[in-house]
């Protein structure tokens, strides 16, 4: 593709002005745009309903966001070393990336795990791996986020068993389990069981934590993957919050009081390249959620109304070409998340369109956040963009679009029903294709990819995971199976199946199985036999 070059006729810009989501943007906004927006009703001061300007009155002046870098690769020992490096470099929370076999509830020696062990994350097959992963890290002293969904309850059970072995009380444990199965059906497609039994596992975690692990965030309702799959900003907002509504409904239906579990619901959004649209998205999200929780679910605890979120910069925006440009993209996306009031943030590494990040690239990504936090002055003032004619207009527009999607999905009977008929999946696929066509036509410029292209780029060093990881992990799971008490494991797996059939809360049963060193594959298989497996009908 021919580059138009820096000195082109670009000074006279033609064509449409749209966001990365395709939203037309007006050249100028004025006070007239704010007609109909009432400050007290629609914005409120920071810390006040509906929290458009943030959930904390003091913004980041009291406490900066948590710099939480998602990491995991290879064996638990290798990832443990990376965690210790991140903590030593000033990281303030851990975030576990699991490999695909773990995410899909398969042991490393299962035939479908071939070639995947330790590649996209760390391999955790049993309590033995979980203990190695956090060896020398006090689980009472860190907050840990675990990105795991279909087998979230199983992995969480292993984490609880590991904490127990360290002598740490569950009451003091703090962290987040992603546990968001709906977005798996919608976007990331790492599902195991059909939607309804999957939803039951989610609400079992809600109920269990309310009683036993009260400081734990029981779900991270995620738009990140929905956006990465191609959704627009408005679709990310709408489908994520509608997923959130579905979880609250199922929790209430399972007999829980809304204020007993809603304060532990957290969210996870993408931070994409279109600066103001992203900031407006976070502000709209807080406003919508506050109103939904108060008016639709009649929650009374203000903590149930407050939308807390983690943000991650957009992996999909990173390019394999001219990878150092990714540092700049990530910095700007991170700034948008901070201006939008994120509670925690992951910044992607420059090499992630090529491989899992090297240690150097991961450190640079963390440094990016530290520069924003300590050098730009941005965190010194709460919601600096509040009142901007443009930002408030965009916030309102995104809110309206999201509410229209709520109506459509409510009309289908709910999110589970919408998923079963493939509605959000199709909407996202359409947006993804439209975006790619705009790139092909050159309507959307991606620096270094379809414009400002350089020939003969020098390759950069990347992290390469070799097959020895799989051998080590297969050997360890073998050793675990031969040293544990086989009778206890068998009994615990039989109890799981009974529990699944008779409607008990599965969490205590899963903790029992984890303590007995049952593997992830064994636990998930036991429940596959009861609940069956979900299969998507492939459509293009």
């Amino acid at each position, binding site marked *: *593709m021919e580059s138009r070059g820096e000195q082109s006729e670009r000074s006279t810009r033609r064509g449409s002005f749209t966001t990365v989501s395709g939203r037309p943007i007006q050249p100028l906004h004025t006070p007239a745009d704010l007609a109909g927006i009432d400050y007290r009703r629609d914005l409120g001061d920071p810390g006040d309903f509906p929290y458009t300007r943030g959930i904390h009155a003091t913004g980041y002046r009291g406490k900066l966001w948590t710099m939480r870098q998602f990491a995991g690769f290879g064996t638990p020992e290798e990832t443990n070393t990376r965690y210790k490096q991140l903590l030593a470099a000033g990281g303030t929370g851990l975030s576990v990336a699991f490999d*695909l*076999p773990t*995410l*899909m509830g*398969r042991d490393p020696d299962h*035939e*479908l*795990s*071939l*070639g*995947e062990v330790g*590649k*996209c994350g760390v391999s955790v097959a049993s309590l033995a791996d979980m203990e190695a992963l956090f060896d020398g890290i006090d689980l009472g002293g860190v907050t840990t986020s675990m990105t795991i969904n279909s087998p979230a309850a199983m992995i969480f059970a292993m984490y609880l068993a590991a904490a127990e072995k360290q002598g740490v009380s569950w009451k003091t444990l703090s962290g987040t389990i992603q546990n968001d199965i709906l977005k*798996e059906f919608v976007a*990331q*497609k*790492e*599902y195991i069981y059909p939607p309804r039994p999957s939803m039951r596992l989610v609400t079992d975690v809600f109920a269990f934590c309310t009683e036993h692990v009260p400081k734990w965030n029981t779900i991270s309702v995620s738009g990140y993957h929905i956006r*990465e*799959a*191609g959704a627009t900003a408005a679709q990310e907002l709408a489908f994520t919050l509608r997923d959130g509504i579905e979880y609250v409904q199922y929790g209430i239906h399972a007999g829980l009081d809304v204020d007993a579990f809603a304060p532990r619901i957290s969210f996870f959004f993408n931070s994409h390249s279109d600066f103001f649209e992203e900031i407006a998205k976070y502000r709209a999200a807080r406003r919508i959620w506050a109103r939904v929780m108060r008016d639709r679910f009649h929650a009374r605890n203000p903590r149930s109304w407050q939308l807390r979120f983690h943000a991650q910069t957009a992996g*999909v925006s990173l*390019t*394999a*070409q001219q990878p150092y440009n990714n540092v700049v993209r990530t910095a700007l996306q991170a700034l948008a998340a901070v201006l939008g009031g994120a509670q925690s943030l992951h910044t992607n590494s420059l090499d992630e*369109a*090529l*491989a*899992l990040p090297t240690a150097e690239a991961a450190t640079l990504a963390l440094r990016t956040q530290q520069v924003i936090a300590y050098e730009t002055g941005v965190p010194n003032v709460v919601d600096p963009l509040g009142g901007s004619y443009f930002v408030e207009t965009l916030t309102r527009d995104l809110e309206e679009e999201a509410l229209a999607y709520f109506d459509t999905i409510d009309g289908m009977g709910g999110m589970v029903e919408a998923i079963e008929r493939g509605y959000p999946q199709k909407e996202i*696929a359409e947006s*993804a*294709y439209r975006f*790619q066509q705009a*790139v*092909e036509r050159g309507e959307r410029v*991606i620096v270094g*990819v*379809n414009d400002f292209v350089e020939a003969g780029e020098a*390759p950069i060093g*990347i992290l*390469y*995971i070799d097959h020895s990881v799989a051998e080590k992990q297969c050997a360890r799971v073998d050793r675990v199976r031969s040293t544990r008490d086989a009778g206890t494991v068998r009994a615990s797996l039989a109890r799981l199946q009974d529990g699944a059939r008779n409607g008990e809360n599965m969490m205590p049963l899963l903790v029992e199985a984890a303590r007995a060193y049952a593997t992830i594959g064994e636990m998930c298989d036991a429940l596959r036999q009861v609940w069956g497996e979900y*299969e*998507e*009908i*492939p*459509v*293009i």
Partner: protein
Amino acid sequence: MAHKIRVVIAKPGLDGHDRGARVIARALRDAGMEVIYTGLRQTPEQIVAAALQEDADVIGLSILSGAHMHICPAVMALLEEKGLRDVLVVVGGIIPDVDIPRLEAIGVRGIFLPGTPMQEIVDFIRKHARLRVESV
């Protein structure tokens, strides 16, 4: 009427990130090809069986998870075994530079990395696909 190029797009391995597979499937279809998308988590055996059953001229594999050095050799060996050596095999996804010559050495013809224009893939397939069913 000319025979349309028949393409099986498959997503092998455990990964569910299917944005690329779906986008390219639509692009090939819009370019006039007959596209069969297998869906997720296909084993090499399932992919080759689909190619055989669908009389595919081309197999497109979407792999982002790092499992390509296990999946591609298995697919190539099965194609050889079933007498489907003339099926054009292309791979799209995240493939480290060091693996590109290794994949080419086992007969993968096109390797398309992130940022590849869809048109480039369409053109490549048009140029290199050997139609298994001649025009009628």
